[in-house]
C-alpha cells in the first residue's frame, strides 16, 4: 500500500515538473560551485607546493589545503614559517580576505552554503502542498473513502516527495564529486569517499528537516498558499535569523578582549626584556615563557567563547548542519585549532632547544614537527553529535506531522 502511494506521489511530482526543477537547480548550482572551488583549490595547492619546495626543512609545518574545502570552505588557519637568527619563526598568514576583501563581504557559495540556504528552500517548496494541495483538489476525501490508514498514507506521500528531492540532490552531489575527481587536484581515496558520504548524509538529514517543516505546515492549514507562507516565514526565522541570533547570544555569554590588546601585552613583556640590554640573551627564554602564558590564556578565553557559540548554534538545525559538514570535510574550527595548537607547541619545543639545550646538542636532535591529521573515522565521530541532533529534529518534526495529520479534516 505504502509503495503504491509512494510511487503515485513520485509520478505526480515528476509530472508537475517539481523534480525536474529540483534536479536542474541542484546540478547547476552544485556543479558551478564545484567548478569555481576546484579552480580556487588548484591555486592554493600551487601556492602550497611553492612554499614546500622553497623551504624543504619546514615543509611538514605547512598545512596542505584540504581537498574537501571545495565542498565546505569552513574555518581558515594557515601558518607561514621562515628562518630567522633565532632558528625558526612563524607568522600567521592573514585570512584569504586580505588577498581579496570581497571574500569577507559576501559568503562563499560552497556546497554547504547551497544546501543550507537554497536547497532547504527547495525542500520547503516540495512539501508545502503535500496535504493541503490534495485537499484543495478534493482528492483527499476520495482517497480516504478507501480503506487507507492515515499514517501509511502520509508516510507514502512524504517518502515519495522526499525521494524526488533526494534523487535531485544526490545527482548534483555526484556531479560535483565527479568534477572534483576529474579536476586532477586529488586522488580519490577511501578516506575521501567516507567523508563525502558523510557530508551527503548530513545534507540529506538537514534537507529532511526543512522538508518535514513544510509538511508540518501543510497539515496545519487547509489551503496551500497559507501553508506556503507560514512555512516560508518559519524558514526565514530558522535559517536566516535564528542561527545568527544564537551566535550573537553565545558570543555575549563569554566575552573576549580584542586581540590587539593581547598583542600589546606580549610586546610589553618583550620590551621589558630588551630594556635590559645585554641581559636579554639570558632572559629571552623567560620572556618567551611569559608571552606564551599570555597567548595560552587568551586562546583559552577564545576557546571558551567558541564553545559557547557552538553550543548556542546547535540549537538551530542550520547551525548543527554547518558544524557537522565542516567536521566531516576536515575544515572545522576544531581542525584549525588543533593545527595552530600543534604549531604553537612545536614552537615551544624549538625555542627550548635553541635557547636552553642547544649548546649541548647537535643539529640532528632538532625537534621534529609532526601533526596527526584527523582520520575520516575521527571526523565521523566528531560530527556524530550534530548528526544525531539533526536526526532528533527529523524524528520530532515527523512525529508532530503525523500526530497532526491524524486529526486533519480531509473534507
Amino acid at each position, binding site marked *: 500500500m505504502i509503495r503504491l502511494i509512494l510511487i503515485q506521489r513520485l509520478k505526480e511530482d515528476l509530472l508537475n515538473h517539481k523534480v525536474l526543477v529540483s534536479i536542474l537547480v541542484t546540478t547547476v548550482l552544485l556543479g558551478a560551485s564545484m567548478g569555481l572551488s576546484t579552480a580556487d583549490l588548484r591555486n592554493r595547492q600551487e601556492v602550497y607546493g611553492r612554499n614546500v619546495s622553497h623551504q624543504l626543512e619546514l615543509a611538514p609545518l605547512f598545512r596542505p589545503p584540504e581537498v574537501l574545502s571545495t565542498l565546505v570552505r569552513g574555518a*581558515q588557519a594557515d601558518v607561514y614559517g621562515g628562518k630567522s637568527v633565532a632558528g625558526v619563526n612563524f607568522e600567521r598568514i*592573514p585570512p584569504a580576505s586580505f588577498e581579496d576583501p570581497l571574500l569577507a563581504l559576501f559568503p562563499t*557559495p560552497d556546497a554547504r552554503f547551497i544546501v543550507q540556504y537554497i536547497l532547504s528552500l527547495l525542500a520547503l517548496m516540495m512539501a508545502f502542498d503535500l496535504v493541503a494541495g490534495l485537499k484543495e483538489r478534493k482528492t483527499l476525501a476520495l482517497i480516504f473513502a478507501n480503506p487507507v490508514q492515515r499514517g501509511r498514507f502520509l508516510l507514502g506521500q512524504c517518502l515519495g516527495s522526499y525521494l524526488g528531492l533526494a534523487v535531485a540532490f544526490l545527482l548534483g552531489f555526484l556531479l560535483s564529486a565527479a568534477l572534483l575527481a576529474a579536476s586532477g587536484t586529488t586522488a580519490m581515496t577511501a578516506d575521501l569517499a567516507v567523508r563525502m558520504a558523510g557530508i551527503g548524509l548530513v545534507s540529506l538529514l538537514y534537507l529532511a528537516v526543512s522538508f518535514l517543516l513544510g509538511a508540518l505546515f501543510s497539515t496545519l492549514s487547509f489551503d496551500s498558499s497559507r501553508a506556503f507562507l507560514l512555512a516560508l516565514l518559519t524558514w526565514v526565522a530558522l535559517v536566516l535569523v535564528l542561527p545568527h541570533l544564537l551566535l550573537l547570544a553565545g558570543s555575549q555569554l563569554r566575552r573576549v578582549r580584542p586581540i590587539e590588546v593581547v598583542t600589546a601585552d606580549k610586546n610589553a613583556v618583550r620590551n621589558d626584556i630588551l630594556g635590559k640590554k645585554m641581559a636579554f640573551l639570558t632572559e629571552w627564554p623567560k620572556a618567551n615563557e611569559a608571552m606564551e602564558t599570555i597567548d595560552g590564556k587568551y586562546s583559552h578565553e577564545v576557546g571558551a567563547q567558541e564553545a559557547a557559540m557552538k553550543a548556542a548554534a546547535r540549537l538551530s538545525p542550520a547551525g548543527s548542519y554547518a558544524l557537522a559538514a565542516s567536521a566531516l570535510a576536515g575544515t572545522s574550527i576544531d581542525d584549525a585549532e588543533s593545527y595552530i595548537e600543534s604549531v604553537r607547541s612545536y614552537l615551544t619545543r624549538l625555542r627550548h632547544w635553541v635557547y636552553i639545550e642547544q649548546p649541548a646538542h647537535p643539529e640532528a636532535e632538532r625537534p621534529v614537527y609532526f601533526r596527526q591529521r584527523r582520520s575520516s573515522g575521527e571526523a565521523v565521530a566528531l560530527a556524530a553529535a550534530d548528526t544525531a541532533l539533526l536526526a532528533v529534529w527529523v524524528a520530532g518534526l515527523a512525529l508532530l506531522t503525523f500526530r497532526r495529520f491524524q486529526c486533519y479534516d480531509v473534507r
Partner: protein
Amino acid sequence: MLGHLARKELLLHLLSARFIFSVAVALALMLCSGWVLLHDHEAQVQAFQELDALHARQIGTYETGADTPLDALAMGGRILDRRPPSLAFIVSGVYGDLPKSFWLSDYDGPVPETNLVENRLSDLFDRVDFRFVIGAVFSLLALLLSYDAISGERQSGTLRLLFANPVRIREVLIAKWLSLVAVLGAALVIAFLSALLLALASPAVTLGADELTRLATVLFLSLLYLALFVSLGLLLSSLFSEPYAAIAVGLMVWVLLVFIIPGAAPYAAAFGEAPPDYVGTAQERQNNLGYDFRTVRQKYVDTGDDEDTALKKTIRFWQDVVEPERSVHMLRANEEFLNRKTRRIEKGLALARLSPYGSFSLAVSDITGTGLMEAARFEKAVEEYRKEFKSFLHARKEAGQYQKVDLAEVPAFEFSSEPLGTALRSCLFDVASLAFLTLGLFAVTYVRMLRYDVR
C-alpha cells in the same frame, strides 16, 4: 484617486500578519546585532586608543626613548593602526576581517600585523549587521509582501471589481508600489532608529552632522534597494497567474541575486589571473640575495681585522649595501602583490555589481567607511607614509645625524576618513544602477499590465 488607492493598500498591508511578522523579525535581528556590534565597537575603539598611544612610543614592537639610534629606527620601523570607522556599529563591512595594523620600515613594508589566535566562528557563519538585515532578510520580506499583489487580487476577484471603476492601470500600479515601499520603509525606519537609540547611550559613538548625513544616505540606499525588490515582486505577480509560481521563481531569483552572484564574484574574478600570493611575497622579503652574515664577517676576520671590528664592519656593510639591495627586491615584491590584488578586486567588484545586493553592499559599506574603498585608502596612506618616513631618515643620514632621534620628531601618520562628498560621489554609480533596475522592472510590469486579463 491615487491617494485613495494607496490608502486602501496601505491599510491592507499594515493589518496583515505578514507585515507584523516582518517588523517583529527585523526588530529582533536589528536590536540584537546592533547591541553586539556596539559592544564590539566600544572594545575596538578602546583598543585603538591604547595601541595608538603605545605605537607612538615604539619602533617596531620595541619601546624606545629620545635617544634612539637612526639605524635602529630604520630597521625597526613603525607600526600604524587604523582607527575604527565611526559607523562600524551599524555596518561592520570588512573592517573586522582585515588587518588593522601595518608595519613598515626604511627597507620594507607595509606588512600586515597578524596573530596566532582569534575566534574563527565568523569563517563558518557570516556576520550580521544592518547590511545583512536589509540585504538578505528585508529583501525577501519585500518579495513576500508583493508576490501576490496582482495575481492574488485576480484570484479573489477584486481586481475585476477594481477595474470596473474609472481607474487607470498606472494609478493602480503606482498605488501598490508606493504603499509597499512605504510599509517596508516604516519597518526599516523603526528597526534602524531602535538600533540607533541603543548607540546614542554609548560613549564610543559620536554622531555629528557628517555621521547623520551618512546614516541618512544609508537609509535612502536601503529604501531604494527594497523598492527594487518590490518592483520585482510586482512584475512576478503580473507575470504568473498562480501565486506559488510567482514566489517560487521569485525565491530562485532572490537566491541568485543575493547569494550566488556576489558570493561567486571573487572566485570568478580569480580565473585566469595570477593570484596575489602573500606567502610568496613574504618569502621574497626574507630573501638575503645570497649574502650571508657569517661569511662576510669571516672575510673581514681573514683580512686581518679583530673580531670586534669585523662585526662592526659587517653590520655597516649590511646596512649600507645589503639592506638597500634587499629593499629594492622587497618593495618590488610588495608592489607586485598590491598590483595583483588591485586587479583582482577591480574585476571582482565589477562582477559583484551585477547583482543589486552587490551594489547595495558596496555602497553602504563605502558610505559608512567600513568598506573596501576605505581599506584600500588606508593601505595607500600607509604606503605614502612609508615614503615620507624614508625621506625623513635619508635627510637625517645625509646630515650625518646618526644618533639620538626623538620619536616626536618623526613625521606623524595622519589618516582621516574619506570626506563625505567623495564618499557620496563614489556611490552614485550604485544608486544609479539600483534606480535604473527599479524603474526598468516597474516599466516592464506596466507594459505587461496593459494587456493583462483581469478576469
